[in-house]
């Protein structure tokens, strides 16, 4: 029997406790790697909320605030941008396209966003994926609605459903634009972004439902019917924000500088990636907390495993004395115990990883559908392999404790343990 098979046989003799230690470690490894995958996927889906857009333009505001209301539909803009300014930006040579968006209304607590059909062309998420229609199509008529998948599902809407949108974003006390019902003509595929919870209408339709509101006379708007509105010229004079694409990457900073120094009204242009990073750093405390807790769980499992080995040392004094009597050096005893720790740790890591993949294969679809988190079932990443190695190294370091103890015990016990 080689020293490796000695360690193996010895573990096999205690297979119940050894198996339990391996399972505890495996579960902790699954948790740890799983949390890391979720964390990375959450970060990725977060930073992939918007892609393909080079600049987000809004009234002068902080980067994060602008990002929050224009992309995440959270909070409100302090001020609008005039269409005239947008037209001047769009006219610049570097600019390829400008998609205006207008926010401020809601439908059953889902945000309504006014935009143009260009939005469906240019808005991109996760590696430049375009928005796809699960059913229906883009705006055709003035009161057409394209609805995000989550909103459609939760509200039970189908193509052809009629909806009334409300002024403002508070569920309570908002006033309905009830003279002008909208009709759902398009339902988007799920994206895992705030688009899923957005109700898209045309800019002109928003203009129509607000006819006369600027003068604060609801009476007027009450009288305007859908038919009358269709006959009117409904060019909005201002929007909330705009997404801008440039012709080349070199143009981005030029356009950004131009917008930030815009003569006429105070504007802000941010690079979505930069603002997303800034926003993510705000939530990274939670991220760190999560990672800390799961690594603590791994550490606990490693300690449990080592405690198990330590607990057996006393009953194994005779075994160690026998090995010493037939020529095993104390360092052989040390190696024997280390090999045990490594076998257990490797077993835990391998089993834990297998369990992780089993969970990924069974649950990833559900996670994607319920939380919009896309979990890739690829081979372990380099980062994950490094984590596994780190766990192994820590297990070896902690495993040295019983090994050292056995080493010293084997020196002091001498020939007999019955003393």
């Amino acid at each position: 029997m080689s020293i490796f098979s000695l360690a193996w046989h010895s573990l096999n003799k205690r297979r119940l406790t050894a198996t339990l230690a391996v399972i505890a470690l495996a579960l902790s490894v699954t948790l740890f790697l799983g949390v890391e995958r979720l964390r990375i996927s959450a970060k990725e889906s977060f930073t992939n909320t918007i892609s393909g857009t080079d600049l987000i333009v809004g009234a002068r505001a902080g980067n994060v605030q602008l990002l929050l209301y224009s992309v995440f539909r959270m909070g409100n803009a302090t001020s609008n941008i005039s269409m005239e300014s947008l037209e001047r930006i769009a006219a610049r040579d570097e600019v390829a396209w400008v998609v205006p968006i207008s926010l401020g209304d809601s439908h059953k607590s889902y945000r309504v966003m006014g935009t143009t059909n260009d939005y469906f062309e240019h808005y991109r998420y996760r590696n430049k994926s375009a928005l796809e229609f699960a059913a229906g199509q883009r705006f055709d008529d003035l009161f057409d609605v394209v609805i995000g998948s989550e909103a459609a599902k939760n509200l039970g809407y189908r193509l052809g459903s009629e909806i009334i949108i409300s002024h403002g974003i508070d569920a309570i006390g908002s006033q309905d634009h009830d003279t002008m019902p909208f009709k759902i003509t398009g339902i988007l595929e799920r994206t895992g972004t705030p688009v899923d919870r957005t109700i898209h209408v045309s800019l002109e339709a928003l203009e129509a439902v607000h006819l006369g509101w600027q003068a604060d006379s609801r009476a007027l708007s009450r009288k305007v019917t859908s038919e009358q509105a269709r006959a009117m010229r409904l060019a909005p004079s201002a929007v909330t924000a705009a997404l801008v694409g440039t012709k080349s990457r070199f143009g981005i900073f030029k356009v950004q500088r131009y917008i930030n120094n815009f003569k006429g009204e105070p504007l802000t242009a941010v690079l979505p990636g930069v603002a997303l990073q800034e926003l993510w750093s705000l939530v990274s405390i939670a991220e760190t907390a999560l990672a800390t807790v799961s690594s603590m769980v791994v550490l606990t499992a490693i300690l449990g495993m080592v405690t198990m080995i330590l607990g057996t040392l006393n009953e194994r004094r005779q075994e160690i004395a026998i090995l010493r009597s037939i020529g095993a050096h104390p360092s052989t005893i040390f190696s024997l115990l280390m090999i045990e720790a490594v076998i257990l740790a490797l077993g835990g890591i391998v089993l834990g990883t297998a369990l992780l993949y089993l969970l990924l294969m069974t649950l990833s679809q559900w996670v994607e559908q319920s939380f919009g988190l896309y979990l890739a079932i690829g081979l372990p990443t380099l980062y994950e392999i490094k984590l596994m190695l780190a766990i192994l190294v820590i297990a070896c370091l902690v495993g040295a404790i019983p090994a050292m103890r056995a080493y010293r015990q084997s020196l002091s016990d001498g020939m007999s343990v019955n003393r």
Partner: protein
Amino acid sequence: MTTSTGSSNGAASKTAGDPVLLSLKDVSFHWPGRNGFSLGVKSFTLAVGEKLFLKGASGSGKSTLLSLICGIVSPSSGSICIAGVDIARLRASQVDRFRVDNFGIIFQQFNLLPYGSMLENVLLPLQFSRERRMRATAAGTANAEATRLLLRLGLPQDLHTQAVTRLSIGQQQRVAVARAMIGNPRLVIADEPTSALDSENRDEFMKLLFEEVSRAQAGLIMVSHDDNLAAGFDRKLEISEITITDRPATV
């Protein structure tokens, strides 16, 4: 110069006119951190092939003496020469090697690793000693030699590959003899090997032990408190005759 690594596996012992297998001279030892228990040996020798009965109750320092002879602990001063090699001067790893090359050790009980079969237990020393492996395979394979030993010790072949946990204590002790004897050690150390056996098994065990030790022409030191076993040994000593122990009163 006899302590060099090269000669530690020592054919030097067989020099003519030197019948001494083991000699201790001016040895002193104390256990680190054990209330200052110390043990000294002025002078003690064992001839090649000699069978010594060492009488001593537990607490007489017998375990310490055996540990010293086996090189499991090393003395603070003095020399312990086995087959011409002073193991007190060997490095720890050399002593461990020397031990397995030259000693067969039989404990009181629980001699066997609880995992592994009878055969695997007998073959264990060969794992650690090339010299023993060569001697054991001189006439064939190690397995064949182990099987022969076990058969001679009255352990039927169908037991050889079975787990040792099912064996009776008497059978376990005989397996321990086989393990001690495989590859012909120079010196067999047996620490109260019969204390767990009933009288019938004890007599059988002693007969087999003597046969094997004589066959290998090895020296034997057996420690026991039972005078009845002294018959058949070349010499009988009280432990107190060779050691000076100093054990301060414990609280």
